[in-house]
């Protein structure tokens, strides 16, 4: 005779999965809608037919259709895929960082990845120093951003080899790295030309405008790997939430899990930063919005965070493209998202307290 609680628990999970599927459908609809958003007047139906024809291998008939297909398939489609990958990756990274540091203020940039990447960009642009010597300046800048954004994780790994690293210590190491790299960057910018400063500034904004089909494979692979990694370790991250001693006594080595998660977050975030610059807000807030709806069990928190993150960036990127002046997407996510988040926080069920 099964306990009736088992059925209640399973029913709760069915509701959670249903919610996740609904979110996924929402993201899919928004992604298809985003294909139609551009300066060129394309309707949702036209965008959908362009996509359907392209997938079916039907060549576009007529000049207008040909231009539409070009915009939908070559500009907007990779941008949508990269938006999903960037939003998903940042949100999952944020959820993982919050869980393993047990700190609701943690996000993917907590360990100083963004300022380290900026420093990499700065030395490439101003001093012309690139870790990967290549003829193309842009590739050199991206390689620098990637290489330097791994520096904080390397520092934490180094410290972790000879002493036990507490979550607070990890965050503090990250903050120290952030200030150090910011100081270096400011020092270099002090004597830089206006052109160099403008280029560095653009890098720091965070935008989806630079993504095309060549950005899709690395971003998609990195997002998929991060999502699989976090789902595989979701149970262990749950156990870690019980505290250091309790998680040891339940068979999870807290220090080892934490370091593994930091390395994974660093890699995934480094890839994202390379192609989009530093998009703030999503990594911090998407997991919290997900928590409001499904609670903090990482098994459901991680997929829902990914969907919330993807939805946020896709939506914000649509707004960016509708507005004149080419605002960076990070500005829109924060401007629209913050009041919405405060509203959710105000309306939250009491039981969902932090």
């Amino acid at each position, binding site marked *: 005779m*099964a*306990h009736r*609680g*088992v059925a*209640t*628990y*399973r029913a*709760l999970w069915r509701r959670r999965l249903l919610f996740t599927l609904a979110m996924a459908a929402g993201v899919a609809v928004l992604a298809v809608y985003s294909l139609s958003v551009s300066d060129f007047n394309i309707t949702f139906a036209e965008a959908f037919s362009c996509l359907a024809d392209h997938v079916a291998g039907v060549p576009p008939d007529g000049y207008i259709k040909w231009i539409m297909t070009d915009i939908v398939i070559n500009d907007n489609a990779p941008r949508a895929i990269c938006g999903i990958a960037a939003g998903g990756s940042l949100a999952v990274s944020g959820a993982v960082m*919050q*869980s393993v540091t*047990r*700190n*609701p203020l943690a996000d993917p940039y907590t360990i100083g990845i963004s300022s380290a990447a900026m420093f990499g960009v700065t030395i490439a642009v101003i001093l012309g120093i690139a870790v990967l010597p290549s003829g193309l300046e842009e590739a050199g800048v991206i390689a620098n951003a990637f290489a330097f954004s791994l520096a904080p994780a390397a520092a934490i790994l180094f410290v972790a080899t000879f002493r036990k690293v507490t979550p607070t210590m990890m965050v503090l190491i990250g903050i120290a790295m952030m200030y150090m790299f910011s100081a270096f960057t400011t020092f270099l910018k002090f004597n830089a030309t206006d052109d160099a400063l403008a280029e560095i500034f653009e890098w720091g904004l965070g935008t989806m405008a630079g993504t095309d089909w060549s950005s899709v494979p690395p971003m998609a692979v990195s997002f998929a790997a991060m999502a699989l990694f976090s789902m*595989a370790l979701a*149970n*262990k991250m*749950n*156990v870690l*939430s*019980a*505290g250091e*001693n*309790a998680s*040891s*006594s*339940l*068979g*999870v*080595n807290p220090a080892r899990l934490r370091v593994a998660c930091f390395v994974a977050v660093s890699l995934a975030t480094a890839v994202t930063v390379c192609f989009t610059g530093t998009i703030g807000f999503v990594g911090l807030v998407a997991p919290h919005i997900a*928590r409001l709806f499904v*609670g*903090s*069990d990482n098994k459901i928190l991680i997929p829902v965070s990914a969907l919330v993150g993807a939805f946020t960036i896709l939506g914000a990127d649509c707004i960016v493209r509708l507005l004149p002046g080419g605002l960076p997407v990070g500005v829109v996510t924060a401007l629209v998202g913050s009041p919405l988040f405060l509203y959710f926080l105000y309306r939250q069920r*009491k*039981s*969902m*307290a*932090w």
Partner: protein
Amino acid sequence: MVTKMEIAIENVSFSYDSSPVLRDIRLDIGGPQFISILGPNGVGKSTLIHCMNKILKPTGGAVLLDGRDVSECTLKEIARKVGYVPHTASDAFPLTVVDTVLMGRHPHAGWRTTDDDLEIVYRTLDDLEIGHLAMRYFNELSAGQRQKVMLARGLAQKPKALLLDEPTSNLDVKHQLGICRLLRDLSRRERLLVVIICHDLNIAAKYADFIILMHEGRVYDVGSPGQVITADNVRAVYGVESRIIDDGGRPHVVLSDPAEGCMEPLCGGSRCVGDCASCAERRSAAGAGPAPSGPSEPLPAQGPG
């Protein structure tokens, strides 16, 4: 069926950096029984139980669980045999009670939560009479309920031994008694070796089968409550004067205010100038001056050890 568990502590020492906490502890304990570790704050009680399940690695000596050195076991192997209930819970991102107790199945379970795991969780909650809290969030619960949930998590591990770090320290008297009676009953019914750290001498005396009294990082005395809880031991370990009275075959400790210094019923306590025999005897033994002085150490504060 759960079989008996033996924990052998062989010459275990532990130091944080250079300050020694445990010095050469030798102890053999085996279940099923209800053991209480007593001793003042900072004497190494928590450190000792943390060495038993590899939360800490001893700096000297070895701990054997059923003859196997814990340093050669993985955390997961130990977690299948030894449950642990921490002193405080983290509630940064609270889970439901079910999900919290489900963590106890982690050492046994795979990635998926099976119906068997859920069945064990719900049965454990019912056993502890907290089944109605199953879907509540952990942070909404009272201290007594939280303690029971953490106990349920330890029991859901289906261990042979259960270690508890001050399970009664945040609880009112009724809950202290309730938790201790429950633990004693569990040690009988589930044939568990239950080891708790306790600060209340009388609670320990009332329920424990066996007492380990620690002093300055060493085991000072072991035995039944009647053997270990004596006025001499309490004075030596805590530096507090006391009177032991008999309570249905178990000792009951009546503590004196350290400032009073004398427990003789006819003596004047703080005004005692040494007329009574016990004060004079104690003073001469300690080589103290004529004025009566209580033990130099203040009464240990209740709190984490």
